[in-house]
């Protein structure tokens, strides 16, 4: 089987760009196709979230299949919150059969934050176990039980890391753990706190991890000062420096979005200079139309 475009781009040492779309709260595939069309040609692969923030949505696997039909390359996100090892492995095989070549192994946002706060979570295995499982399936052609698979799903394996969550001293050890479990690429939480991100990258380099895993830094353009303040205060694991909030507050409301894009572009330029960083992951939440603009303005267009 041919490798996916993301694996190829990264393998050739080129700076990769990925973006993200969230499936709709309903059965209409048009929504996902419309969002994806905005990203076509300007990113190497598109993450498709798996019931993100624990809100029930169209499944990641089916939305990914729609993208494949559109000729785009999805990164199927998969959380261990909702499925046990039986369902996870089964869906990995099914996803591969549908042409999905990348996946991101996550534990998932806690269900109490979502649309079904009364749901039971599964967490039979965690994200590191999932990485290990996908790697074993791919490289040894066996499932978790050791059974030999007639066709092994050859997934390019991703995971998330959050350099901004606590405890900081452990974050890079956790990255090492994911690398040891077999992860190929990492997409990080959105970078606003550049100093902390650089420190984390340094620790990763010092441990030789950037030689073993591709790291894509997450970026999310701020739409308004309100959004910045909300994220800084309410979203655990996101830090936004005070001066960035002040800067967003300093511009007139109608220019805030443009300022947010400007900050995002400056962030991308700074990120590109960090040794060992392999790409960026643009999470423009319900703002997919801006991704092409960002990629072009950042000088990352056309894509290889």
């Amino acid at each position, binding site marked *: 089987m041919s490798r996916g475009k993301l694996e190829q781009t990264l393998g050739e040492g080129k700076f990769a760009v990925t973006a993200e779309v969230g499936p709709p709260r309903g059965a209409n595939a048009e929504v996902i196709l419309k969002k994806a069309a905005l990203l076509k040609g300007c990113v190497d692969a598109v993450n498709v979230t798996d019931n993100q923030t624990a809100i029930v949505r169209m499944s990641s696997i089916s939305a990914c299949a729609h993208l494949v039909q559109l000729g785009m390359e999805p990164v199927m996100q998969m959380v261990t919150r909702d499925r046990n090892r039986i369902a996870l492995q089964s869906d990995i095989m099914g996803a591969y059969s549908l042409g999905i070549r990348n996946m991101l192994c996550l*534990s998932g946002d806690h269900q109490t934050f979502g649309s079904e706060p009364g749901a039971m979570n599964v967490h039979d295995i965690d994200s590191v176990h999932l990485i290990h499982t996908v790697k074993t399936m791919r490289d040894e052609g066996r499932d978790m039980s050791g059974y030999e698979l007639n066709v092994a799903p050859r997934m390019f394996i991703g995971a998330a890391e959050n350099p901004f*969550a606590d405890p900081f001293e452990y974050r890079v050890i956790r990255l090492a753990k994911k690398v040891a*479990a077999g992860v190929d690429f990492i997409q990080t939480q959105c970078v606003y706190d550049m100093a902390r991100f650089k420190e984390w990258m340094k620790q990763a380099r010092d441990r030789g991890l950037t030689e073993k895993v591709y790291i894509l830094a997450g970026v999310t353009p701020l739409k308004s000062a309100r959004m910045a303040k909300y994220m800084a205060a309410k979203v*655990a*694991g996101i830090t936004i420096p005070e001066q960035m909030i002040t800067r967003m507050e300093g511009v007139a409301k109608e220019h805030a979005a443009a300022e947010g894009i400007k900050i995002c572009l400056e962030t991308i330029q700074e990120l590109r200079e960090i040794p060992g960083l392999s790409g960026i992951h643009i999470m423009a939440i319900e703002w997919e139309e801006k991704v092409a603009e960002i990629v072009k303005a950042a000088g990352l267009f056309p894509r290889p």
Partner: protein
Amino acid sequence: MIVGEQKPLEEIKAKVSGYSRILILGCGTCVKTCFAGGEDEVATLASALRLSFKLEGRTIQIEEQTVERQCEDEFIKEAATNIAEVKAVVSLACGAGVQMVASRFPQVTLLPGVNTTFIGILEKAGLFTEKCLGCGNCIVDLFGGICPIGRCAKRLFHGPCGGSSKGKCEVNPDTDCAWQLIVDHAAATGQLDKLAEYVPPKDWRTSQAGGPRKVHREDHEI
């Protein structure tokens, strides 16, 4: 110990409202220690119910009794005389005690008056916290004596997740992040690198996932 919480008065009142005579049966072990179902709680509940019905112009006869442990036949048989007099028993024991009473006295309607909450400890006066999920195969040695199965909202073996903030869990911000505690302990004892090791997926057969469990001690069988 098993930690429980008494159900709201209104809920208990609704459950007993169809009866003119009931027994409130307390348990003198775990639920007594956590102030949910010992002798004092039996007396308070009985008095509150009597007053509440009196305000509505009704009378209810309430027997009160507390046995040492409702999860042992040896002790609940002491309640036989009182139970024979009533049609319904409000048990203030944990779920185990409630069921033990229900199976020994099938002729009486068993009404639970306590919600069994968790296996935990008395952290400080007035504060009980969960520590163990009863998975049936203890591995706390891998985590410095802090169990991520019982104490992490996502039961992560390779945590912490991105929701760990300033030592607290995003799910319950007044609860410590178990993984912060695990990392702190490892750092303090110079074992951070031990936490880089891969812990294989758990075999959940020893947990409730394997069906109701039994401990059979033939050496204690008579």
